[in-house]
């Protein structure tokens, strides 16, 4: 306290304190105003956990995966810190979404706050860029193939797409150059941009003041200082958010998939939930219309979001007197959440590929079965075609016996006996049984 007084007598801190804490909030403090602070808190949490992850992380294809595994398995609290960063990213998207929804509903983008809204939209896009670049860093199968798809989408943009994709990828293939530039963007470029824009966002807030309630009647109740009641509400929400993320980090493990293997094209990646609606949309649009979904629609939506304060020129802030704007917002959310819902439903409806089938497929390759057998046109033609052997010969027992001793069930067969262990027999059988017309 005495140090504070000593500093205050020299630096005149009291007036700064007043400016910061006595900011008037029209209509008084409210729980509905907490989302901006929650987002800012989550950004700080991401920044802190990110710095600590960087203590052990190595951004090269040789070591990225091993270094994350080291954090997960060897470093005390490593899995917790990584969990905080992972769940914090999701939470940040949720918090931004709610913050934008609140600003939209309250008409807080209307004059004189147009620029604050626009800076906010850019901040949202930056957060999405954080999500995209951060996703590659663990260099596991999910990371690698999800990023591959993301890059391919950029490639579908006409004229400049190919060029843009190559710039993002850095090299001929998704590899060392891609990883190091994604790392640099994620931990150096984007944070610098984000911090500057957060500063601009807050600066504008202090210049024009918070929007407050949408009805003049409530606003005329008079304003209340930011401290202590709004600060208290913000702090309580931050604690709740931290508790939720911390619990998720402790209770829901977020394991790595296998190390990225550019040769394994059978891996089906699933993007993070906040990109799922977009992923789902792309399933419905094919052929010449594909660019419509991959970039025209997103571009249009982003431009509408960005310039929304100039598109919606209705001066009213009360939602009841803005049926068009509220209707448009509702339709947008309905579409996004329907796509998200559909995507989640499909994801859980699709039977996950049985790992035994995957192992069996590897054995099929390892023992050179394709030297004699053919599946969907690939392989030799001297032995029976196996494309639909799961339909023509569905008995498991038969296959197991056959692999052990082909001649015992198929007299005269020239298929050799392969030295298979019992688990290998099972895996190979699972694989051939999976070869059906309808999976």
């Amino acid at each position, binding site marked *: 306290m005495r140090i504070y007084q000593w500093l205050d007598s020299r630096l005149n801190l009291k007036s700064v304190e007043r400016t910061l804490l006595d900011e008037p909030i029209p209509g008084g403090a409210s729980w509905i105003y907490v989302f901006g602070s929650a987002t800012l808190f989550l950004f700080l949490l991401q920044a802190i956990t990110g710095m*600590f992850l960087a203590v*052990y992380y190595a951004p090269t294809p040789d070591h990225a995966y091993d270094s994350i595994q080291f954090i997960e398995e060897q*470093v*005390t*609290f490593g899995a917790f*810190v990584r969990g905080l960063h992972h769940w914090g990213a999701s939470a940040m998207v949720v918090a931004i979404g709610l913050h934008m929804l609140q600003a939209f509903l309250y008409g807080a983008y209307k004059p004189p706050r147009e620029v604050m809204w626009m800076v906010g939209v850019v901040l949202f896009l930056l957060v999405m860029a954080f999500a995209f670049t951060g996703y590659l860093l663990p260099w596991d199968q999910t990371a690698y193939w999800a990023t591959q798809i993301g890059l391919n989408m950029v490639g579908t943009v006409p004229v400049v797409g190919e060029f843009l994709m190559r710039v993002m990828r850095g090299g001929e293939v998704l590899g060392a150059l891609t990883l190091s530039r994604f790392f640099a963007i994620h931990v150096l470029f984007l944070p610098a941009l984000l911090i500057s824009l957060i500063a601009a966002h807050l600066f504008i807030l202090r210049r024009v003041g918070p929007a407050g309630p949408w009805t003049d009647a409530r606003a005329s109740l*008079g304003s209340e*200082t930011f401290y*202590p009641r709004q600060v208290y509400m913000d702090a309580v929400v931050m604690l709740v958010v931290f508790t939720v993320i911390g619990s998720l980090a402790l209770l829901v493990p977020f394991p790595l998939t296998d190390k990225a293997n550019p040769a394994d094209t059978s891996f089906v990646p699933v993007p993070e939930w906040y990109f799922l609606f977009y992923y789902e949309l792309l399933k419905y649009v094919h052929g010449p219309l594909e660019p419509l979904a991959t970039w025209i629609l997103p571009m249009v939506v982003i431009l509408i979001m960005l310039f929304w304060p100039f598109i919606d020129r209705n001066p009213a802030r009360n939602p009841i007197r803005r049926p068009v704007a509220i209707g448009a917002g509702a339709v947008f959310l309905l579409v996004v959440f329907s796509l998200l819902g559909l995507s989640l439903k499909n994801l859980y409806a699709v039977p996950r590929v049985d790992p035994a089938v995957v192992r069996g497929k590897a054995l099929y390759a390892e023992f050179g079965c394709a030297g004699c057998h053919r599946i969907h046109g690939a392989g030799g033609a001297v032995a029976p075609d196996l494309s639909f052997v799961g339909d023509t010969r569905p008995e498991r027992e038969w296959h197991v016996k056959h692999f052990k001793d082909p001649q015992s069930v198929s007299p005269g067969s020239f298929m050799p006996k392969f030295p298979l262990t019992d688990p290998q027999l099972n895996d190979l059988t699972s694989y051939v049984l999976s070869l059906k017309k309808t999976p």
Partner: protein
Amino acid sequence: MSEHQGEGDEGGASTPVGTRRTFFGWVTTVAAGLIGFGLAVPLVGYVISPALKRRERPWVDVGSLEEVPLGDPKQLDHVTTIQDGYLKNQSQKAVWAVKRPDGQVSVFSPMCTHLGCGYRWDGDVKQFKCPCHGSVFDIDGKVVAGPAPRPLDLLPSKIENGRLLVVFKEFKPGTKDIVEL
């Protein structure tokens, strides 16, 4: 405004005063404290944990017992795997093995206890000699001459199925006491 009334006035904006103000301030402080504590403890543990962990050194097979003649120290080379965080490095290491008449084997660290140079065995005079500063040790590792402050460092060793197993360690040179690195 009285102490216990809820509203004050601050430049035209109302503000809670008295016990209400104290309550809000207190809750804010507690929330900030809990978040800070919940972050600080794991993050400190996260940063210092590798510094506190002692490497587990494995038993390494350095060769067959038959390779070591009685009373004639022999340098045994072996490849040891060193775990460096998430990296594994293969490294060539040597030890000196001495077989005694009773069949026991002593294994010495290959570094002179003076400043860590590699020494060699002089079979003519039956002494270990360090070429750097002239330290001399007898076959038991005891200092015979020169600046070495302590005898040669013994490494833990055992014999299994006629093979000599050693735990490779390094020690701080130049000190009278044995300090493991």
